[in-house]
């Protein structure tokens, strides 16, 4: 049965805008301070091993792609290169955006800007929109990063397997920001002091893309673009498949990450590509914990959380029917079961009067 939710306005300046929950309203599983400090501690060593390995693989498969160009071997080389660049780069951009990866700050920043370009995202705009996503996770009218508004668009989801829907959005953002223009939604979370940096970053990214396209044109070869720019299209599919599990089909407007986010067990290869973001409840509950400590954080809080999905397959078996049902019944969502003895979800309704202030 269609409900009024079908017509919910997800924009940040519409009738559902206004205040979200207060920071203290959100549920967190208590962890002794001493243990939490251990989990939050940054270290360059595991970060350099992970990022060094990743960057080494990007270069190795990029070199293979160049060497195999013009033969059929270029196809598998491009597939692996694309996933490392598009999907591995996207997850690393996210981690560096939180600044939790390296203890050395300039390393975080350097990798953040590199991977933001690889993901074709504006590094300043996204830092601020992502801050809002963490303040108001899946709160309608507040969270600018709700990827599955109800009813979700299956067409957009399929297009995003080749990054097509997202890239149209990101490229048009890049052009508008490069021209010094912000939408009303963007103005609602990006402070004026960040505007100049935001515009400059888009201009630089655009300049690099134009330079690479020009080199491709001059050489009459797709190869330069296959190495820089296009991998975001042909290699982001894995990130898209994995990131869909984060919040899709779950509750909206509830101050409890255990109920609006998912933790899914993945194989080590996917976890490497995805920077352990499959521990998504953990990441949202304690965003200070670097990705390489998320498995330990998971053990710390798992007794207080819904059971993790044993595999990607198990997650999609629940997720796909839910978003299909939301096509005709947007009020439907997956209610995650809390185990016996788990902490109670805070009893804070988002008050109606807060909307549209």
């Amino acid at each position, binding site marked *: 049965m269609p409900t009024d939710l079908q017509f919910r306005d997800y924009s940040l300046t519409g009738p559902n805008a206004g205040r979200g929950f207060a*920071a203290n309203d959100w549920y967190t599983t208590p962890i002794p301070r001493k243990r939490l*400090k251990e989990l*939050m*501690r*940054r270290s360059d060593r595991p970060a350099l091993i992970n990022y060094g390995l990743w960057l080494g693989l990007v270069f190795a498969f990029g070199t293979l792609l160049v060497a195999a160009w013009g033969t059929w071997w270029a196809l598998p080389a491009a597939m692996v290169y694309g996933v490392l660049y598009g999907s591995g780069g996207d997850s690393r951009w996210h981690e560096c955006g*939180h*600044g*939790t990866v390296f*203890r050395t*700050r300039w390393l975080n920043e350097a990798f953040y800007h590199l991977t933001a370009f690889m993901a074709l995202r504006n590094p*300043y705009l996204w*830092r*601020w929109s992502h*801050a809002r996503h*963490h*303040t108001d996770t899946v709160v309608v009218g507040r969270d600018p990063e709700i990827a599955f508004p109800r009813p979700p668009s299956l067409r957009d989801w399929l297009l995003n397997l080749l990054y097509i829907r997202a890239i149209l959005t990101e490229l048009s953002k890049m052009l508008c920001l490069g021209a010094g223009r912000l939408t009303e939604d963007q103005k609602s979370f990006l*402070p004026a*002091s*960040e505007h100049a940096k935001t515009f400059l970053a888009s201009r630089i990214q655009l300049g690099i893309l134009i330079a690479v396209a020009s080199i491709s044109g001059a050489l009459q070869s797709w190869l330069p673009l296959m190495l820089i720019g296009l991998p975001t299209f042909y290699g982001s599919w894995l990130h898209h498949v994995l990131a869909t599990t984060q919040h899709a089909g779950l509750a909206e407007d509830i101050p409890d990450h255990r109920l609006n986010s998912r933790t899914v067990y993945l194989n080590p290869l996917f976890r490497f590509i995805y920077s352990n973001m499959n521990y998504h409840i953990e990441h949202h509950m*304690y*965003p*200070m914990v670097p990705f390489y400590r998320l498995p330990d954080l998971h053990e710390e809080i798992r007794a207080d959380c819904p059971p993790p999905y044993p595999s990607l397959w198990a997650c999609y078996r629940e997720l796909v029917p839910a978003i299909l049902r939301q096509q005709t019944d947007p009020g439907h969502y997956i209610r995650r079961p809390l185990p016996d003895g788990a902490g109670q979800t805070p009893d804070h309704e988002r008050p109606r009067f807060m909307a549209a202030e």
Partner: protein
Amino acid sequence: MANWTRACATGDIEPEDLIRFDHGTRTFAIYRSPADEYFCTDGLCTHEQVHLADGLVMDYIIECPKHNGQFDYRTGAPERSPVCEALNTYPVKVEGEDVFIDIG
């Protein structure tokens, strides 16, 4: 006119850590640096009013637990977005094993 208020004992804070100190309606953060110096700032992040006491101290930086914004707790200066506004800082003195802050 200084208004020294006892906030805690020196041993209440581990090196390179902080604690929360509430006084009346106000809340503060008291820091112990890796070099065993003590500092005091407002207790709430200037971005979204989250308690900094749940954050992480690294050298002379306090990182906010909500969005990883950073301040230099010696000066209160913002060091990493999304914080833009400085924290207020307050003079601190240590007498014996007691930490006092001057909250004006």
